[in-house]
């Protein structure tokens, strides 16, 4: 038995080195750790050991099984998730914690503790969006916001207990934005409300028990509704979609169990409710109707749509700007982070600009996750109105103001060191940030009520 034990250890080492035995990989996306290269200097400082330990922690032989074993133990014994990205509610309903936070406290606290301030922020963003919508409408581009439901909004009865969340409930984006959109005339479709309306009568789950995104079937019906709304605001109906054969399946289709996958148990979590799916077909394209072009800027809830619909059948193209930072142009399987593309060109050549955000992400409407200054609404507003030279001149002016302030420079100097940038780069980045987060402070025409009259030359010469 001692020999058995020793052989077992050697097999683990061998598997760690060769990964010869195929083992199902862990689900979810992970930080990728590379095997560090050895250097005497790194060894002496302990850095090599630290990096190697971190690497081995996830790459030893059969690590997938040991991690799954632990996750299964955690789930089975404590009925909790071993990973912090998943919160367990009643009847095995799984949730992402930030939706739970939005249910009990609202995500307001991420931005401010003052409800008035949050509402003011949303008000300003709605006004900007109304301006962008009006400007783009001159170019024949239709803008709309799709307010996508969040799981805790639709199924609060299954949410985990309030637990550590103790602050009073603040205003929620999904409650504040729709009246503001009405006030400023922004096109929007409130699918959250639609889900609430049909919750008691729908014969299928609006959200799957083990997933964070809207269910495959519910998202399909919802998108069909949204397509009709798009046709309504443009006056050009889209190619009709035919939904039929609502049926049950025994195992879930991705991403109906995306949160279960994050838990990585050895065995599937038992669910009492059936998984339902619907077949999607496309009616023939009516004569003289062309397929429109669309840009969808939004969060991961749009992935469901890309799985369920052949977007090529509906659109000439449908670019997916995932969080406005990972751009899927021609294929949903290859993306780019290249921010070198021209916003104005892109916006002026599409037919629809759709902002597609779930209730938890609506607070960050238009956000760019990799560029703090890259909110699509302010970017579009500024770039549609002003030429790049004017924008750059304004940025340089802000840079000068920054350089004249010793405290500001000192602060940016520290920030530059932390981020490995030169001070000049940091100053320019800060100036860009200011200009694109508070454009009204630098371009008085944008602050004035009503639609700005100024346009960039590309817009004028389109």
């Amino acid at each position: 038995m001692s020999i058995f034990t020793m052989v077992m250890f050697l097999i683990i080492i061998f598997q760690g080195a060769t990964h010869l035995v195929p083992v199902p990989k862990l689900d979810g996306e992970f930080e990728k750790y590379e095997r560090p290269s050895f250097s005497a200097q790194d060894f002496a400082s302990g850095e090599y050991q630290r990096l190697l330990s971190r690497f081995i922690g996830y790459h030893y032989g059969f690590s997938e099984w040991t991690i799954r074993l632990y996750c299964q133990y955690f789930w089975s014994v404590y009925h909790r998730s071993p990973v912090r990205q998943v919160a367990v509610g009643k009847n095995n309903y799984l949730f992402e914690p930030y939706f739970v936070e939005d249910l009990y406290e609202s995500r307001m606290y991420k931005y401010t503790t003052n409800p008035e301030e949050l509402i003011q922020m949303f008000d300003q963003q709605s006004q900007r969006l109304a301006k962008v919508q009006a400007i783009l409408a001159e170019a024949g581009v239709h803008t709309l916001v799709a307010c996508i439901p969040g799981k805790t909004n639709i199924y609060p009865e299954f949410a985990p207990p309030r637990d550590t969340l103790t602050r009073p409930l603040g205003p929620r984006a999904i409650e504040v934005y729709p009246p503001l959109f009405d006030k400023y005339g922004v096109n929007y479709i409130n699918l959250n409300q639609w889900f609430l309306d049909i919750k008691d009568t729908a014969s299928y789950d609006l959200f799957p028990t083990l997933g964070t995104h809207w269910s495959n079937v519910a998202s399909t019906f919802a998108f069909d509704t949204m397509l009709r709304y798009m046709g309504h605001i443009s006056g050009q109906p889209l190619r009709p979609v035919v939904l039929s054969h609502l049926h049950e399946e025994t195992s879930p289709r991705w991403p109906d169990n995306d949160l279960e996958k994050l838990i990585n148990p050895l065995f599937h979590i038992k669910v009492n409710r059936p998984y339902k799916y619907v077949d999607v077909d496309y009616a023939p394209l009516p004569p003289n109707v062309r397929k429109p072009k669309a840009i969808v800027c939004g969060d991961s809830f749009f992935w469901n749509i890309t799985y369920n619909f052949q977007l090529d059948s509906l659109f000439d193209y449908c670019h997916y700007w995932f969080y406005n930072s990972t751009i899927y142009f021609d294929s949903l399987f290859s993306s780019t982070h290249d921010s070198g593309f021209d916003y104005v060109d892109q916006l002026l050549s599409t037919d629809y600009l759709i902002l597609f955000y779930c209730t938890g992400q609506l607070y960050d409407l238009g956000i760019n996750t990799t560029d703090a200054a890259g909110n699509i609404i302010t970017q579009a507003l500024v770039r549609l109105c002003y030429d790049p030279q004017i924008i750059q001149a304004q940025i340089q002016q802000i840079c000068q103001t920054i350089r004249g302030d010793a405290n500001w420079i000192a602060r940016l100097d520290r920030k530059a060191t932390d981020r490995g940038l030169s001070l000049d780069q940091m100053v320019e980045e800060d100036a860009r940030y200011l200009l694109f987060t508070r454009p009204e402070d630098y371009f008085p025409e944008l602050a004035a009520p009503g639609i700005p009259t100024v346009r960039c030359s590309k817009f004028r010469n389109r």
Partner: protein
Amino acid sequence: MIFSSHIFLLYFLPLFLLGYFLTPDKWRNLTLLLGSVIFYAWGAPDFILVLLGSTIANFYLVKAMHRAPQPATKKLFCTLAILLSMGLLAYFKYANFFVDNVNALLTAFGLDSMSWTKVLLPIGISFFSFQSVTYVLDTYRGINPPMRRLTDYVVYIIMFPQLIAGPIVRYTDIADQITARRRLRWEECLQGFYRFIIGLSKKVLIADVIGRTVDVTLGGDIAALDMGTAWITIVAYTMQLYFDFSGYSDMAIGLGRIMGFKFPENFDNPYTSTSITEFWRRWHITLGAFMRNYLYIPLGGNRGSQLRTYFNLWIVFLLSGLWHGASWNFVIWGAYHGFFLVIERLMGIGRQRRTWMVLPTFIIAVVGWAIFRIEDLPSCWLFISRLFSFDFTGFALSAHPQFYAMLVLALCFAFITFFPFGKRLQQWVFYTNYTSRCHIPVWVVSLLLFFLCLGALSATSFSPFIYFRF
């Protein structure tokens, strides 16, 4: 390198053991030496030369001491060897503490403080310094002759199973095993493996889990803690410390057994003690033995007046406290225990085992751990005041069910030998040679626990995202 790491468990240990088992008996110490140097150098490459240098110097000093014909010369070499070991300990462990206190005094008197570059603490120095001292003094006292071979001595000092956190193995207890161990038997190896897994599980599945909540609570606002939260937290810390430290000792003892050594036990159900005196016979036994043999008895032990005995006891515990860490809270913790030992002597407590005394003894130990855990003295005092605040408003501890489950499990294990069946269970698990039929289920359970520990070690920082791009 620490035992509860993937690199140790999955690479170093199997490869070392493979090499060790394949080495002929007479070369095994060399394999062990090589493994121990790699083990130490991996975690503290800067200090391996300090460790080896001081160990080699000590070996030759003791050799010279042994050969010296005159008692005065012997004494001189003995003093030099002890000064070398304790000098290193004093420099590396206490220099910063000393300078900080001197600077605090200078500042208090309005003087400029001394400039000083902080000294890093070589891992395990408290243990190997004490082992060196036992070697010097046991040889000086003629209990054992010195080692003939330098490599054997270095093995004794830096043998990796007990290098980092003990047990402090007295030279006289292991001298024979180093030079002439029994041939390895597979039953012994397996028993060692089981013991190692028990220790690993105590550390990874119990102590670390409990520790995460303790760290969060004590890292927060202590003033806001209600009495219930404060007690649960400190009892949890009491269990964390015990399962962490005794788990490490179990791993060391198990590893030693796999290699053919028999290390002394370091813990014997300390929380079932009925007095603080008994507690110290059951908690960190090898340190207690060291302090008794090499400090308390040389100071005069209980051979002098009663007052002198109390003084000796108190000094021993003061220094025991300081040995645990260079900070005032450890000194106070040592003095706290010394105080109760003196009280017990004065009142005659502990001569007879009284079952009901388990609870007050446990409470004294628990409050002592508060002093031990919270280095900042005002915070420590604040925490102790919260323990007795009788404020039951707003139970603030928000812990995962796993914390409570492990805490209850830890309490059960800590007190199980209070009952006869627990004693029988302990005897069977730790000290009985299993039959072949027993080995199979125990082996399977051990492997399951081992893989669970591996998973837990990865899962602690396991944090996948649905869409990483976000």
